């Protein structure tokens, strides 16, 4: 039921006294396939996340990946790698504005349907003070509404109604990586971005939908950084150093 700590878990440290809310039949961090039984719920104060499905009190995996657990949030989920993004609330995404539809923008966030962004969801916006964003512009936004029955909705304000980095991204270049790579780049331990930062200066916005926006001083730098990020998904830190040591 309890698991011992392992160096591969950088999510949470496990101590042997920890009481899990699920009577686990697999180890946290192990690989699971759809249909694998995960365990039985023993404590109702638990959150079952993406990749898991609940049937009365039994939990099954429905996606391939590694079982992860967050002690603070009592949250279980399956972390797998896929290309198509599934919008989830509180995710930060890089979207491309498709068109203006009345009082809303239709934004492509690489999910199954485009998301709506209200023109009032910006800091300091009101009926009289409206922001216009041209079609095709990239924006950084937060997913506010996402479930299987509705179109997802995004907003360009933080929870305290401040801009906080959200909004239109000026200039720069947008490209796509896999969801897993985007997630690893958002962690503070990402070696790739630190190593790039030591060589050149640039602005970056990583979306949990697998889209990355970068902006730097000139085009050559931008292209080089984009290429490095795209190939850097499976490279170890020493391999990254080798690539970056070549003349820029």
């Amino acid at each position: 039921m309890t698991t011992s700590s392992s160096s591969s878990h950088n999510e949470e440290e496990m101590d042997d006294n920890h009481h899990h809310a699920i009577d686990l039949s697999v180890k946290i961090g192990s690989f699971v396939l759809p249909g694998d039984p995960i365990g039985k719920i023993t404590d109702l104060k638990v959150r079952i996340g993406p990749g898991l499905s609940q049937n009365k009190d039994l939990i099954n995996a429905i996606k391939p990946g590694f079982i992860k657990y967050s002690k603070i949030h009592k949250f279980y989920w399956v972390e797998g790698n896929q290309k198509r993004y599934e919008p989830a609330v509180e995710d930060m995404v890089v979207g491309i504005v498709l068109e203006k539809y009345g009082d809303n923008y239709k934004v492509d966030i690489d999910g199954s349907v485009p998301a709506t962004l209200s023109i009032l969801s910006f800091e300091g916006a009101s009926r009289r003070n409206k922001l216009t964003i041209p079609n095709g512009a990239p924006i950084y936004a937060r997913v506010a509404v996402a479930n299987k029955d509705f179109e997802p909705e995004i907003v360009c304000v933080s929870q305290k109604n401040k801009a906080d980095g959200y909004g239109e991204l000026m200039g720069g270049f947008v490209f796509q990586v896999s969801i897993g790579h985007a997630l690893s780049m958002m962690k503070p331990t990402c070696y790739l971005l630190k190593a790039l930062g030591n060589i050149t200066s640039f602005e970056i916005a990583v979306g949990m939908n697998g889209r990355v926006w970068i902006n730097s001083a000139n085009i050559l730098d931008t292209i080089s950084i984009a290429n490095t990020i795209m190939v850097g998904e499976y490279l170890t830190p020493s391999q990254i150093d080798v690539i970056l040591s070549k003349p820029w």
Partner: protein
Amino acid sequence: EMEAQAGLEREDGRNQQQMRPIMTELGLLVRADGSARFSQGKSTVLVAVYGPTEARKSAHIDRAVIDVIWRPRVGPSGYEDREKEGRLRTTLEQIILTSLHPRTCITLVVQVIQDDGSIMSAGMNACILALLDAGVPLASIAASVSFAVLPPSPHHHPRGFVVLDPCLSESEAALVEINLAYKRTREGAEVISCKAIGTMTDDLFFACVDVGQFASSKIFNFIRCALEEKA
């Protein structure tokens, strides 16, 4: 009937209950959400999964629509390919959790690269691998196996016998062909799809179901290794 003639060999040297070597490559198509190239011996199939994407006129309000396109190696697709598409779709509808993606469409394109028998099984196994590669939510994983009953021949098998995973020459000579798909359950494997052509006894059919259960559990382990390595 299957145990009694366990010593008999087939053209390619396999024994009755032996499958050909299976191999797969995942995520090889850049533009598809998921893809898998799978081969059983020389029978090779490439499957691309697109979706879930926005569905228009064919949308259901409570679940995803599954669209299967089977492309033969040469020539335009005919009625036999339509039948394969229909069978794949009804089998996959039992595996894919379509209620998690209402008003969307999940498209699977199955391209036959080489057909050396058991191509329907290879197609179905490739579809499952491609769906796993794409991260489409599934209730469980599935696997498919095929059987053929070969006619008696004076030198090799005087009574005629059943083989697992027939190659093309064995299929063409077969009196009976059985194709089964299994879903992995807590107890083992459960048949979710079956097509049998020819005259056979109950015993023969259920013997095949049993051997198929064992063979599909091997395929399940293979699927696990393939996905774990990719991760």
